[in-house]
């Protein structure tokens, strides 16, 4: 059983309430932090090796240390709770079932960064979750953990909720800040980075929900203790939201030493593939990261078991590897169609493109159209090359990483499952009623490495 730092108390009855959360040891990190020097708190987070849990995996302590501190200018902490990456529902789980953990993390982190007013930007669709958080915020305030002069420390802090209104792009931090200013969520050109010029032109740190929650055990137990969990640069624990054709979809907290195979087949986690089917493919880190066929998922190209951590999932780069991403783990069984699945992903990116950069605005539309053509049995062989060409022209040519996120799944689907695309073209009627079988990808490893 993996050590749990975030979810260990999630099943305690009444943990949503301040009273129970406090009785179970909650808000100790605030008491401890308020007695520390802010620089020392940042140091602990650096030592912990914590990496941003939203998808990019950037070291959190380093991000915090970049925050500019000009005299007389307000600084802001903004929590990114705009969880929208297909396959990802871990932040919702934290906020819905243990809301005080995020609020505790927000207060501790706000103190470390010198933010007297902090915001939680929650996706608009999580309407009832916002109510749960608001109730928890009200309780925290009634109990003196928010407001003026918290616990007599002289530190003032307010945390406000901000509900988005349905835009995946607002998960990109500069788009999120634009949205927080009451505008369209159009990503900004960087630099300047938010740490220098963020919301309303003030220095701002934007962190994911899970990242901020992880600050709590780091302060409680120390950065070194946190760094001892896991392996290499994958320290601490990570939440994985598992979905698709598995027996036990849900949110799991893992220490990053377990293998992908154990994660999929162990009863402690996914519990194996549903309905006795076989594993075909998996997207291990949310819709943006490359899909991997079963053989490359379970073992790296070097033949080593693949582990559920940043380094191992990325082993082989995008040719034979993938990425930890946001921890959205989407499993496809042998009956699933990779072309159809990738089509829905491309439709998603087309729908969500903010329209600011031409390669993305136009390219995502092309991707969706060509996919639809192939998926509905009207495709030609040259369409597969056209898909490849279009995604290549999006990647790296946009202001924000959205373009890459739209391109990568398409590239990986063609790279590993080209014969499935070809089968659609060659069998225009059959592909409407039947999915391409399993046999084709057994040799995938050889094909891509030769």
């Amino acid at each position, binding site marked *: 059983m993996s050590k749990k730092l975030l979810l260990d108390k999630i099943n305690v009855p009444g943990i949503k309430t301040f009273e129970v959360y406090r009785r179970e040891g909650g808000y100790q990190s605030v008491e401890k932090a308020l007695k520390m020097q802010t620089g020392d708190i940042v140091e602990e987070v650096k030592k912990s090796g914590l990496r941003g849990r939203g998808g990019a995996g950037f070291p959190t302590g380093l991000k915090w240390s970049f925050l500019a501190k000009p005299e007389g200018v307000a600084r802001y902490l903004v929590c990114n709770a705009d969880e929208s990456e*297909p396959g990802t529902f871990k932040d919702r789980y934290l906020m819905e079932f243990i809301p005080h953990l995020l609020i505790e993390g927000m207060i501790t982190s706000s103190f470390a960064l010198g933010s007297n*007013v902090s915001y939680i930007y929650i996706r608009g*669709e999580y309407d009832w979750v916002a109510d749960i958080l608001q109730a928890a915020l009200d309780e925290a305030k009634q109990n003196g953990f928010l407001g003026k002069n918290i616990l007599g420390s002289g530190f003032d802090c307010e945390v406000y909720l901000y*509900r988005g209104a349905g835009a995946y792009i607002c998960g990109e931090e500069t788009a999120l800040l634009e949205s927080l200013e009451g505008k*369209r969520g159009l990503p900004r050109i960087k630099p300047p980075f938010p740490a220098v010029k963020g919301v309303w032109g003030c220095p701002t740190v934007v962190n994911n929900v899970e990242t901020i929650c992880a600050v709590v055990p780091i302060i409680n137990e120390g950065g070194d203790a946190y760094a001892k969990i896991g392996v290499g640069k994958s320290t601490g624990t990570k939440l994985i939201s598992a979905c*698709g054709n598995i027996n036990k979809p849900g*949110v799991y907290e893992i220490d990053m030493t377990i293998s992908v195979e154990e994660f999929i087949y162990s009863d402690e986690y996914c519990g194996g593939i549903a309905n006795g089917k076989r594993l075909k493919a998996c997207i291990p880190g949310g819709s943006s990261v490359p899909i991997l066929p079963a053989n490359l998922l379970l073992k790296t190209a070097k033949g080593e078991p693949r582990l559920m951590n940043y380094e191992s999932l990325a082993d082989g780069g995008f040719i034979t590897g993938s990425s930890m991403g946001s921890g959205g783990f989407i499993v496809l069984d042998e009956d699933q169609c990779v072309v159809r699945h990738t089509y829905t992903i491309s439709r998603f990116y087309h729908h969500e493109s903010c329209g600011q950069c031409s390669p993305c605005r136009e390219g995502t539309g092309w991707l969706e159209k060509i996919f639809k053509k192939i998926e509905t049995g009207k495709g030609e062989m040259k369409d597969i090359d056209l898909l490849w060409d279009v995604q290549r022209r999006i990647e790296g040519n946009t202001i924000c990483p959205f373009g890459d996120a739209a391109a990568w799944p398409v590239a990986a689907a063609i790279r590993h499952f080209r014969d499935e695309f070809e089968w659609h073209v060659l069998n225009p009627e059959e592909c409407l009623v039947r999915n391409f079988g399993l046999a084709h990808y057994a040799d995938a490893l050889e094909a891509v490495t030769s």
Partner: protein
Amino acid sequence: MSVQFSPEKLDKINELISHYPEGKHKSALIGVLHIAEEEFGWLSVNTMDYVASLLKLQPIEVYEVASFYSMFNLKPVGKYVFEVCQTGPCMLKGSDQIIDYIKQKLNIGVGETTEDGMFTLKTVECLGACGYAPMMQMGKFYKEHLTPERVDQIIEECRNNSARNN
């Protein structure tokens, strides 16, 4: 101007504005548009102009935001809006069949409203409930683990005015 918020909603709006620094009241816009949808069901040009005057913004600043975010309805919708997720993880669990079932059951297409004004069907992209797929949003709440039987039950609850979360 024909639209007007109730005093309670105006209080809520002033509370929202107080969350932001002096002069940064535009940040309250999305929140105010949510309140407007709650109050009026959808965002008409009249409503958006009213919001603009309330927040001392140009109407275009409101239109451009309202038209960017997919949650805002710029056309009237039914009393109950079924927003069925159709992205990858939900597709794997049969969202296409659920959408077809609702279409047939309510005799409407995607984007349409039933003649009695009760139901609107929309398809949406990932709502962050992938482990509980297939699913849809209905107003404030998520309806998860959908099956045709569950859809029947939800429709029945709506008709009896007893719809609730999950």
